[in-house]
């Protein structure tokens, strides 16, 4: 095997990755929990890390939203995003039109925009601090994540329905780790709130053990989307695109715990059309963010 051929294969992949302009639903700040070898991503390093992995921007979350409290996570996230060198939140504006539009300057591509995923709680009982329903979220907050198991709240209409209504009013998606839910409860919630886009996240353990309920859920609930950081079984992307359409997948990396090259590689090589690859790589997420009503 020639080294020249290896270089050529690498260059082919690099070219495709740059063309697809990945927009990442799973960028994480703060100290990771449950991954002893993972290192924290410093806010100042976000742009460099993402750019080296072909990611042009995306949604940023903070571990404290799970490990400490939603309020602590939202506060830390606001501070961290304010300190990064990306475009200020207030100036983010529309990102749908950026696909393929912005150019790299020098070796490091420009980060289009970083937005925030706030951590949420039920609106009743009302809780103090920066949480949905308590104060109006900053303009860069374009999604809300809940941790039903960690924060001891049943994923049921009578408990989280008020938050779901709040999200529907803003056309804001709900994110949830698959490890934080029971599948029947998520099914009921998705059927109850048909206008609520729910993004099922594939971390922090293998989601492949749950592909049977996940695919059945996707079949019955068009408002269910899946992020791809650990959507890693052979043929999962092709199967999902064939059965449900590329619009149902959003690119996620789970950086810095995971390497963005994992979902990037899977998408580059997937046996789906170029249009579908672009949707999954970033356009689906850009559209979700753009459609949020401020």
């Amino acid at each position, binding site marked *: *095997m*020639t*080294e*020249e*051929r*290896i*270089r*050529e*294969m*690498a260059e082919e*992949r*690099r070219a495709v*990755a740059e063309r697809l302009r990945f927009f990442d639903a799973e960028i994480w700040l703060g100290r990771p929990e*449950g*991954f*002893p*070898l*993972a*290192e924290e991503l410093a806010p100042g390093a976000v742009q460099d890390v993402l750019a080296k992995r072909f990611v042009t921007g995306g949604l940023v979350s903070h571990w404290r939203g799970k490990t400490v409290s939603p309020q602590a996570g939202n506060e830390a996230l606001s501070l961290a995003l304010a300190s990064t060198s990306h475009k200020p939140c207030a100036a983010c504006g529309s990102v749908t039109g950026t696909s393929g539009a912005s150019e790299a300057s020098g070796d490091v591509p420009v980060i289009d925009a970083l937005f925030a995923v706030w951590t949420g709680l039920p609106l009743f009982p009302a809780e103090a601090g920066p949480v949905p329903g308590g104060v109006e979220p900053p303009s860069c907050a374009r999604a809300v994540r809940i941790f039903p198991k960690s924060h001891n709240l049943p994923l049921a209409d009578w408990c989280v329905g008020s938050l779901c209504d709040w999200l529907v009013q803003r056309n804001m998606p709900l994110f949830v780790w698959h490890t934080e839910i029971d599948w029947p409860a998520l099914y009921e919630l998705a059927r109850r709130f048909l206008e609520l886009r729910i993004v099922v996240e594939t971390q922090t*353990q*293998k989601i*492949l*053990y*749950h*592909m*049977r309920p996940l*695919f059945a859920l996707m079949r019955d609930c068009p408002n269910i989307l899946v992020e791809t*950081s*650990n959507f*890693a*079984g*052979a*043929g*999962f*992307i*092709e*199967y999902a695109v064939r059965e449900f359409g590329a619009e149902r997948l959003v690119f996620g990396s*789970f*950086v*810095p*715990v*995971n*390497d963005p*090259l*994992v*979902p*990037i*590689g*899977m998408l*580059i*090589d*997937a*046996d789906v059309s170029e249009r579908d690859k672009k949707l999954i790589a970033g356009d689906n997420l850009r559209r979700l963010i753009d459609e949020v009503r401020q």
Partner: protein
Amino acid sequence: MSEPCIIDAHLHLGPPGVFFAPETESAQLLARMDRLRIRCAVCTDDVTLFDVNDDCLIRPRQVFEQSGGRIHYLGVFDPRRPEASLRSLGGAKEWPGFVGIKIHPSMHGVPAEDERYEPAWRFAAESDLPILTHSWSASGYNPEQHLSTPERFERHVRKYPGVRFVLGHAGGRGTGRHEAVRMANEYPNVYVDFAGDIFCYRLIETLVASVPTEKILFGSDFPWLDPSANLTRVLLADVPVSAKRSILCENALHVYRIGAATC
């Protein structure tokens, strides 16, 4: 320009049972290998992990032959059934495509250091065959994994220095990886593959910096994982291209004694 000889040194065949896998058959595997330009593979037929018997390696041999010599296979040693395992391994020793032994302490419920693995190591030494094992870190949510932490294999590794021994999954995502790295440095016969969802950020760069390059093997764990994930990580890793060539091809050729002519 010649096509690359990429070897996926750790994958599986057959429906996994515990999850839905869209691609499980050899034809699907070959199609994916072709798309990714993977020339050869080393597989374990999942049936043999659960049911070792005299005939269990007939199907993988057929797959090898039908694949034109591209999908090589391992025979399983189940320490709970040593006689049946040795009969199966002995019968296949001279078969085309048979390249080594697979053990899986977590699946078989027998800790890696247990005496019951002794016949497998002896057979490997006498037959000049490598052993590939599942290895992982201790896990809070998957307690069986503690049976396969790398340091548990150490007494066998020391006793059989001539047996090429691959720590599959490189000790996993947790502290088991430190042990895998230590052993790959300490013992000339210990290798690591990074098959599976060891999707840690900059893993390839970390491994190349901490383990001799000739000790690292590319693997995917198909159909559990898509081979393009790990292949892309190697191809785009910030490591010398000579290291990529070793990882993708040469090290597997050496460990599994796959004929260079195959590539």
